[in-house]
């Protein structure tokens, strides 16, 4: 650790002290301080971890569906650019439609069970994946196209052996965004269509006026987000080392 790293710790520390002071002043169970939240983490640990499991599982399934469908579609639209250009405005419009706005609609089709949530998650993850894949696949360096042609690769082979690998770095960026939003939407969809999961845990905490437990839940969400982000970064560095080597 460097000196600024250590000195920097004072900023969150001051924030925590301020928070605690405000909580002491308010002196209300509806405004717990960091100390109460830490206690709540201890007493609700099991329940939170269990509920978080459901949330993560649905997020993972939705994300996987989005990757499996949107990466091929993006590559295809990039290669057959005429079709891609025609769909561009539709994609742009979908990109601005917030995933939670889709929830009520999906609810009409699939009820409020796992399927509904997974559909919404997949939709949320699909948008950044499709946009990034499409963008990358259509801006593949022209030289690569010529190489593919002189190797007499067919359209399908070109997509598989040229477009896909060349697009991977941008797909990875899209995947990172998509993963973050699948976790986010997974929680949101649980709060809107409650059955189980960490979102429901948060709702219950509100209904029982135990805000400290709710904040404990939020702390777990934030920790999960941090871990996932760090993991993605590591994997990206390992699998796409050739890209980083070139960029450096």
């Amino acid at each position, binding site marked *: 650790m460097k000196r600024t790293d250590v000195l920097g710790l004072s900023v969150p520390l001051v924030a925590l002290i301020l928070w605690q002071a405000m909580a002491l002043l308010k002196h209300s169970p509806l405004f717990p301080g960091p100390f109460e939240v830490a206690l709540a983490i201890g007493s609700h640990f099991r329940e939170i971890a269990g509920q978080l499991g459901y949330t993560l599982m649905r997020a993972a399934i939705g994300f996987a569906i989005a990757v499996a469908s949107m990466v091929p579609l993006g590559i295809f639209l990039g290669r057959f650019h005429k079709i891609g250009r025609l769909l561009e405005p539709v994609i742009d419009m979908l990109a601005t439609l917030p995933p939670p706005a889709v929830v*009520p609609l999906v609810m009409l*089709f699939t009820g409020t069970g796992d399927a509904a949530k997974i559909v919404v998650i997949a939709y949320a993850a699909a948008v950044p994946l499709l946009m990034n894949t499409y963008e990358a696949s259509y801006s593949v360096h022209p030289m690569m196209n010529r190489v593919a042609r002189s190797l007499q690769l067919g359209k399908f082979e070109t997509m598989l052996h040229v477009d896909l690998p060349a697009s991977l770095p941008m797909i990875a960026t899209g995947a990172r965004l998509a993963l973050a939003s699948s976790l986010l939407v997974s929680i949101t969809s649980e709060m809107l269509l409650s059955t189980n999961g960490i979102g429901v845990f948060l709702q219950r905490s509100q209904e029982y006026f135990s805000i400290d437990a709710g904040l404990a839940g939020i702390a777990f969400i934030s920790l999960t987000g941090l871990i996932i982000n760090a993991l993605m970064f590591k994997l990206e560095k390992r699998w796409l080392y050739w890209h980083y080597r070139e960029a450096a």
Partner: protein
Amino acid sequence: MKSLLRTFVSVAILLGVWQLVYIVGIVPEKYFPSVLSLLAAFWQMLMSGELAKGELMTFSRAALGLSAASLLGVTLAILADLYPVFGRGFRYISDVLQPIPPAAVVPMAVFSLGLGIKLYAFVIILVTVWPAYMNGVAALSSVSPVQLAAGRSLGCSRLELLRHIKLPAAMPEIFTGIRYAATIALIAVIVSEMLAGRDGLGFMIFKKAFANRTPEVFALMFVVAINGVALNALVNGLRWLVTGWHIRMMERTE
């Protein structure tokens, strides 16, 4: 002009496919209204005035929240640039706060902030400051050393350096962040309205969905999507005003 035509064609195709699905009848009509009944629902909501009211609520909340969050983000980024210790320390906080979804904050904040403007402001700002802040910090610290040296040899003080060199150089990247934040702001508004709202488009969508009024739900979703486009256009216009020199420069080199 050409892109306008393209948009027109693709919207026409979208509506055509929509109507085709309706005619073929794969999906029950109850869930998949025809384009006509969709338009009728839109018209009816427009005439009754509820659409305009909800739209005004949602859009003003998103736009105001986004502006406040962007200003705060840039201010924090400047502070982080002036005081490295603060910058490093604030990164601990931003790392922890960034992954928190807006939906999770709403129920916890309701008791302290009520159901009014304070709640919306808190939720929107909490989730939308990060892109402007992150991009701001990155851009301010990566200004070309040559430009800084030029400024210094002209006798600029630290603040003048920031005002005349670093900030203008960082603006394009900051706006990229704000554009991303615009999407998040709209999501945050809609979610807050769904969970704790008494008005606005998010509240309306939920109410209509529970009343099984599918055409209205679809129509409202289109309106929400158009809101996203409008918010984007607003940010783009501002970006042109503030960093027009940069955009023109980029176009010339292409």
